[in-house]
């Protein structure tokens, strides 16, 4: 049976669609209402409240905690001041991605790492010979993501003992909601203004209630994974085992991806003398780049409409995000594949994340996207564009 998150007493009655999904062993709502559109728009125009408790969380403490984190992740942990959060991938010794997540620096010698999948043993193996204890705190910590333009105002009214308004993008602060001590981070998976709230499970329901109560006047809606999926594609954010395959789950070498191949080259931060797991392999790759790269695509909507109109149909593209791999062509040859795609309600465009041959990864390139209409395959033009597709100023301000 699927586990229930600490918010289940609140999310279960709200989930009128009864559409649940297994997220790391927890029942997680795909949508609360029958469709996800309302929840999506809450994120973009009010605030969406997501239960993200199933994330794996690890606490790392000890005099070598910073050294350990620095050894595990591709970004330089020493450059992360106390009270800040890093988004970063981490790799195996061959420089292939294992997972990606955030690293919160709670103190000089205390960190909290979130990941999509379990990696306690990995962190502990990396810690051999170091003074750094790694603890799995997944079940000791519930988490909510409050995402959307009104999220700051809601939190300002709910959180005490912290200046939420002053919290910078990727900042971290302690505070309270009611009687519950919380950690608030200005992070999220929607590419919008947003926060994540970390709280002990026994205080979870109280925090939910406080947010829901105040949020009523700010367009707050509980939101599920379907809405999140559309928002994260608009934000150009990767999903493990969809947009890249973890080296731990890849059955064959060619399925694995390095951060460079996954568009996360910016997160690889080598420094002379810095030795992180995979650093040598990544240095080699930096010198002799892989033939694969990452691209954001905008598919020409009028062409999609035209293809459907030709057989007398309105454009029947799924209302939800698609995780189906779709071939990409150029010059009559396949040059890559789309890993995630969605119609973007706010941009009114069809957008996609893709793995393509490196020479096609630069913005401006024109490629063809395979489209099947009435069991017949066609191609429609698409353009490589910079990600995020949607990048509101409020996200960082």
């Amino acid at each position, binding site marked *: 049976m699927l586990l229930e998150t600490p918010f289940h007493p609140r999310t279960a009655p709200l989930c009128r669609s009864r559409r649940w999904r297994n997220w790391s062993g927890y029942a997680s709502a795909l949508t609360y209402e029958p469709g996800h559109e309302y929840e999506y728009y809450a994120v973009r125009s009010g605030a969406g409240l997501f239960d993200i408790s199933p994330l794996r969380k690890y606490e790392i403490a000890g005099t070598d905690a910073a*050294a350990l984190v620095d*050894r595990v992740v591709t970004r330089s942990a020493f450059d992360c001041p106390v009270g800040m959060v890093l988004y970063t991938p981490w790799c*195996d*010794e061959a420089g292939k991605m294992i997972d990606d997540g955030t690293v919160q620096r709670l103190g000089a010698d205390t960190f909290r790492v979130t990941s999509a999948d379990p990696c306690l*043993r*990995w962190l502990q*193996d*990396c810690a*051999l*010979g*170091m003074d750094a204890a790694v603890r799995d705190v997944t079940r000791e910590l519930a988490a909510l993501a409050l995402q959307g333009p009104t999220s700051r105002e809601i939190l300002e009214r709910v959180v005490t003992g912290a200046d939420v308004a002053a919290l910078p993008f990727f900042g971290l602060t302690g505070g309270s909601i009611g009687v519950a001590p919380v950690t608030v981070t200005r992070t999220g998976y929607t590419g919008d203004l947003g926060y994540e709230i970390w709280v002990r499970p026994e205080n979870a329901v109280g925090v939910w209630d406080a947010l829901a109560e105040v949020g009523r006047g700010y367009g707050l809606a509980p939101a599920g994974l379907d809405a999140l999926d559309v928002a994260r594609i608009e934000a150009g954010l990767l999903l493990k085992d969809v947009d890249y395959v973890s080296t731990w789950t890849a059955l064959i070498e060619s399925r694995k991806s390095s951060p460079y191949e996954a568009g996360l080259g910016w997160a690889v931060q080598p420094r002379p003398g810095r*030795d992180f*797991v995979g650093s*040598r392999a990544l240095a080699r790759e930096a010198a002799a780049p892989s033939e694969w790269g990452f691209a954001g695509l905008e598919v020409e909507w009028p062409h999609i409409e035209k293809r459907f109109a030709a057989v007398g149909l309105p454009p029947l593209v799924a209302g939800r995000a698609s995780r189906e791999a779709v071939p990409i062509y150029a010059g009559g040859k396949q040059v890559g594949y789309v890993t995630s795609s969605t119609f973007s309600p706010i941009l009114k465009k069809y957008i996609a994340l893709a793995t393509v041959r490196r020479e096609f990864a630069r913005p401006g390139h024109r490629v063809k996207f395979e489209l099947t209409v009435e069991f017949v395959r066609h191609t429609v033009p698409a353009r490589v564009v910079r990600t995020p597709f949607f990048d509101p100023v409020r996200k960082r301000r």
Partner: protein
Amino acid sequence: MKKYDAVLVGAGHNALATACVLARRGWKVLVLERRGVVGGAAATEEVFPGCRVNVAAQDAGLFRRDFVDEFGFGASAPGWVHPPAVATSLLGGGDGLTLWRDPAATQGEIARHSRADANRFPEWADYLDAMARILRVGLDHPAPALHDFTRRERLRLLRPLAQAARLGRRRVVELLRVLPLPARDLLDDWFAGDALKGMLATTALPGASHGPGAMGGAFRMLYHATGGQAHGFRSTSFLEGGIGALSEALAAAARARGAEIRTGTEVERILVEDGAATGVLLAGREEIPAHCVVSGADPRRTFFDLVGAPQLGPEFNRKVASIQMRGTTAILHLLLDDLPPLDDAEQRLAGHTLVAPSLDYLERASDAAKYGRCSPRPHLDIVIPTLHDPTLAPPGRHIASIQIRYAPYHLRPAPVRGPHAGPSPPGGDIAPGATPRAGDIFDEFLARTWDTLDEFLPGTRDRILDHRLITPLDLESEFGLTCGDEYHGQMGLDQLAFMRPVAGWARHRTPVERLFLCGAGTHPGGGVTCMPGRLAAREILRARRHPARS
């Protein structure tokens, strides 16, 4: 500063063999040994005043003599001793069973117990030698690099395969059949007599923490016969001047070719820069740069203590942490004013003298170790080197060195390190509930050893002038053997060949460039064989010729 081509960590006999080969090639070689003498576990030192004692290893029967021939040790060539008795099993009540170098004499002895066994014994002795000869082909060639099975690797396998095939295809198949067997099963196939089986099974015990019922015992029996001339037991030979003479001879041969050897010099760290070894740092903070570093210390010590886990990848570290290192042998040195009272003692006690009266006796002794306890009735393997070279002790004195099994390093509950809690309570019992002290546990173990000696070799105790017990904890602290493991890692089927020291790194190379391993923790394994050292030298020379082909 003088830059060495190779700095070797430790002057165990394997590192000395590596040093010989490298120095002969004109390499500038420096060997650094923590202890005051060379030889590591194969050393002879003054333990009692005026007495030279083989501190750990006794039997050099596994040593590859062709190495001596290859180097022509000249005046320093060690003198081998082959006493008439190979082994004597003490059966209590003054009874014994001796295997002699003379096959007819052996047959006569066995016939006193079982005529059928006596008839089969010559065939068994041939079988053991034949199987060991094939196994040796595998041991004396580099381990197959199955993890990177390129065309070149496949070609490198052709030679040993052809060599093995020449020894008889059917025998190769037979070898594959028996290798995983427990010693018990193999021996039950051959013999009926419990005394004989118990005695032969002792050759399966070194290198494992389990008894004769454990898988892989047959492999270890054959392994211990790969020195040739097993006489149905194990390859056995001793040295004038003790086993240390062999290590000294290796050291002399290395020095003669220009190698420097510094004893009393502990390496504190192996220096690594950008993933490559650059030299060593001594305990006295002196840095010695070198083109490559070769470690003769065990793999866990090398990687975790000398290199440091944070310098290595987590996947590799996991493997190193998982290497089974489990010392279960203690050694007890006795200074005697006469030989133990036994008819024909001078003859019968000149080989291995065993307390191993049956398979079940050994199995019970090993049971205790499974639960982290010392055997209440241990198995003893006694060697009296003064019968091989009387000059080791003053006239009228004898030395007996006893390997005692089982005394596990990993005691449960984990004891407090340190000698005694005070005067032992009567009977050496440990108060229930109290955290025991290691010293008390081993005092108790020593008491059980005396009992065993009284039972099987009565009268010996009256002749003891002095004794010294070396526990697995001492083997770690004094000899640098992690967890007191005498073979630098158990010799189970899961830690052999391409899986020794860890899967993927069987060729003496390491994830650190220009850092190599040459000790017993590498293929083909433990014992005083010199093979790991020789094979390592070959790989090191190859790596220099083809740095890219690593």
